[in-house]
């Protein structure tokens, strides 16, 4: 007999359902931010730090040379230039990269309530790894 949705739902754990809900919210809002900020950039609604027609001269450079020549920011400094189209687009990218953080946070109370300390610890480590990556502490050069 084919299974109905509610039976199928019962196979999915509470934390998995919650994670899915928040992941969906994060991904959808991130894609909207990405699309809107990109339109603002290419249609000139926001000024660009590097004029679009100059990009072919610099996009073949290595990151190191690109930053050296254009003065583009590293780490989180792009946030201070958010009014410029080139960097407004990074907001959507940062949002998409960070939306898993929220998902991990919202499932931790479920593990805590269940006293599932191992998965609680795994979530904490996963959060720390993501935060470390996002922090900008880990910077290297060519």
């Amino acid at each position: 007999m084919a299974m109905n949705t509610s039976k199928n739902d019962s196979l999915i754990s509470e934390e998995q359902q919650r994670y899915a809900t928040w992941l969906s919210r994060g991904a959808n809002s991130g894609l909207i931010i990405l699309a809107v900020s990109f339109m603002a950039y290419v249609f000139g609604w926001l000024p660009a730090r590097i004029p679009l027609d100059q990009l072919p001269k610099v996009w073949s450079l290595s990151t190191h040379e690109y930053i050296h020549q254009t003065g583009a920011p590293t780490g989180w400094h792009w946030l201070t230039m958010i009014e410029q189209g080139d960097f407004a687009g990074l907001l959507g990218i940062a949002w998409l990269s960070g939306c898993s953080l929220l998902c991990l946070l919202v499932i931790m109370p479920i593990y805590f309530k269940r006293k599932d300390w191992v998965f609680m610890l795994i979530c904490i480590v996963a959060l720390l790894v993501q935060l470390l990556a996002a922090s900008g502490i880990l910077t290297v050069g060519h």
Partner: protein
Amino acid sequence: MFNEIFSSIRDTAGLLKANTLLLLLTLSLFAAGAYAAESLPVASSMPWWGWSLALFITCFFLGIVAVPSGVGGGVLFVPIVGGFFPFHLDFVRGAGLLVALASALAAGPSLLRGGLANLRLALPLAVLASASSIAGAMVGLAIPANIVQIALGVTILGIVALMATAKKSEFPEVAAADKLSSALAMNGIFHDAAQSKNIPWHVHRTKLGLTLFVGIGFLAGLFGMGAGWANVPVLNLLMGAPLKVSAGTSSFILTLVDSSAAWIYLNKGAVLTIIAVPSVIGMMLGAFIGARLLHVLKASVVRKMVISLLLFAGLRALLKGLGIWL
């Protein structure tokens, strides 16, 4: 009777149309690649929007073939765009990670809700792979681009060999779960709609699986590719998870692995929105069409075409890295 004949003719015509389209598409990609390669390096007179449009169209087609061939968009994106577009490999890898991340994020919620991705199976593997993807991204941005190109070429050719030879097992036999997977409760039940039944599963060889995921994460960060090509065989053939659970869980794992590597590229300034956004949008639209063409496209034909494309792109990356075909 007539209805059956007409329906059969319609199906055949649809199949022919779709496969002809696919053939043209593949040939266009080869031709575009060869043209772009000839017009390199850099001194192209094409304006920025021309390259953005070419990137969008390329990614749209890559998205179409990525779904039926069962490979992630990222693994196609990096060697093809890195080999045939004028962008530096740093920016291509940054965009490649975002392409893989956006695709995984878009699919993640429905995979989790449908039980095809399993959180308990994914999280321990994803934590290790995320940490190593950070290391991979840091190494990738620290070593010269030609070394990365050579390593990328070799890896892509390895993936081609893996894709051409690896077997898949719909429901691998796992006599008993090992101690570690039992302790972590890395098991579940998924509802297989094709058979209309619930299928319980568990995994074994967890320690080896965890170790391999460290390496997979490193490669994902190093080359800016999603790592579904490696995740699925490890989950399915080594650890013994059912094929659909392996594919779904692999995609979900990428949401964590690629995001940690993406942060490194972003913080290092290796993400250009003009490259990343058209790629993400093109790939997602293509994947949307590809998913709808699944019933008319012959998966084995698409797979062979993708293997040919990857072979071409892998050789191109290798030769470019060696300075033979610039």
